[in-house]
């Protein structure tokens, strides 16, 4: 039976991605570690503050995992939510036997505005801990296909990972279209134009730009298979890594800096019939995109 990754809860996704029976959760909901700031504001709280963290196995290999719950305040990062992720990364660094990967199931609009400063600081600490761990050679794999997408601070965290898997439904960007429309007007970004939003922030465009490594259909089993496939990917963060990325990003800016919409970029990349890209099923899209997509 095919299970939609997009429609699943964080727990359903996580249980579907890791090896059956292998998940061991840290600070589970029974610990009732809720946000002190939401309490202060008399807002609803979650007993896991919207993120599951734990240890598991993936294709037999020991990993650490985290999954954000997009249904709780849009998966946004607050003080407790963020500290759970920082603790998980520190645990990976301190482990006597390094995990094969730290797997992050993103589903988040970014900083939780109800606890603004604490959320921003938490995202900063996650980024710093993650990149420090990458210097040690730990591998971070991110999965993007949840209902709240991967925006703001979470979009930054995702792009700090070694490798990303995305579905067409999985949006990845910095500012959400609504924010841009509010500040700059509907002419700049019409957030109700669904097709435009998917073209600019959606998985297909991110795959063609070379920002993500795998494109999968919206099925939990497909995300699992892609994550397993990335376990052998070289890890590490050093001067050569960032110099290569710099050249890649500078070239993209030179080539596409004047493009207004995604199909212009796709045409420039040599994608045949770029206007048909949004309508293609996942397998057909990958067959079309793989030979011409940009890559570091």
């Amino acid at each position: 039976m095919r299970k939609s990754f997009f429609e699943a809860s964080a727990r359903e996704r996580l249980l579907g991605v890791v090896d059956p029976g292998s998940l061991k959760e840290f600070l589970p909901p029974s610990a009732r570690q809720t946000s002190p700031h939401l309490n202060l504001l008399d807002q609803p709280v979650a007993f896991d503050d919207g993120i599951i963290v734990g240890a598991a196995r993936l294709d037999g290999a020991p990993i650490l995992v985290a999954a954000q719950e997009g249904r709780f305040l849009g998966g946004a990062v607050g003080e407790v939510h963020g500290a759970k992720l920082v603790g998980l990364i520190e645990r990976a660094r301190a482990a006597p036997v390094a995990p094969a990967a730290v797997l992050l199931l993103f589903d988040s609009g970014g900083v939780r505005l109800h606890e603004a400063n604490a959320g921003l600081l938490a995202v900063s600490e996650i980024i710093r801990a993650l990149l420090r761990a990458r210097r040690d050679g730990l591998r971070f794999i991110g999965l993007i296909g949840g209902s709240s997408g991967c925006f703001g601070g979470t979009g930054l965290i995702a792009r700090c990972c070694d490798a990303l898997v995305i579905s067409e439904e999985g949006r990845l960007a910095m500012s959400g279209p609504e924010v841009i429309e509010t500040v700059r007007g509907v002419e700049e970004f019409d957030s109700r134009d669904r097709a435009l939003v998917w073209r600019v922030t959606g998985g297909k465009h991110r795959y063609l730009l070379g920002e993500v490594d795998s494109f999968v259909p919206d099925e939990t089993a497909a995300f699992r298979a892609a994550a397993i496939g990335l376990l052998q990917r070289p890890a590490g963060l050093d001067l050569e890594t960032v110099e290569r990325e710099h050249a890649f990003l500078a070239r993209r800016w030179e080539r596409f800096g004047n493009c207004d919409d995604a199909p212009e970029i796709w045409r420039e990349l040599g994608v045949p019939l770029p206007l048909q890209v949004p309508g293609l099923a996942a397998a057909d899209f990958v067959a079309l995109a793989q030979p011409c997509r940009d890559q570091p």
Partner: protein
Amino acid sequence: MNRDLLLPALFPQGFTLEEDQDDFFRGTALVADETVLLVGSRNAVEIGVDLALRISAAVLTTLRTHPGRPVVLLLDTQGQRLRRRDELLGLNGYMAHVAKVMEVARGRGHPLLSLVYGQAVSGGYLTSGMMADAAFALEDAEIKVMNLPAMARITKIPLERLEALAQVSPVFSPGAGNYFQMGHIDAIWKPDPQEAPGALARALADAIAQVRAGTSEDARMQRGAQRGGRTSAEAVARAVRQHA
């Protein structure tokens, strides 16, 4: 504080700007007889794809040409650029790239320091100034995610309620002092060169020496707990780290 007043106050031994356009600047300066790389933004500029590339290029070049040279970021930014075109190119990837360059610099022994002398907002600050080993702000600088009225609108919590809570908690409202209490800011500098000539320069020199003597591990959670501004983070992270 104005950038052109800040530079001489911060670098009385001298500084040279090699690039100074589009509200981005880059150069070198002398701090306690040592040359530092100077990278900054001015006029509260938005950080877009191009600026992120220029910040990372400046640091990357120094990693190759001057091993161990301190990096001083001087920031005044209203945050990430809110344009469709930047999002189309993947602005978050360009900003994450800045963070990676900073982390690689740290690993290669370059002390990283940041000073907010105007504004620092969310995405524009996260992967630059917030990556520093030591982060400072001038007294009148503003660090924030958003103002309370915007927060009230989005969260649908009455503004009066948020204003009252902001009096007792550093979590909600803008301000360098709140970020100090929460453990992020090392110190708030008073920018009066008349009253205390040389004070800023001495503070910067001391900060570089302290970073060199330190462990380069992120201690902001512990500091936030010690200062009473962030009471949960450290304990939660420890619980996850040590969970049997």
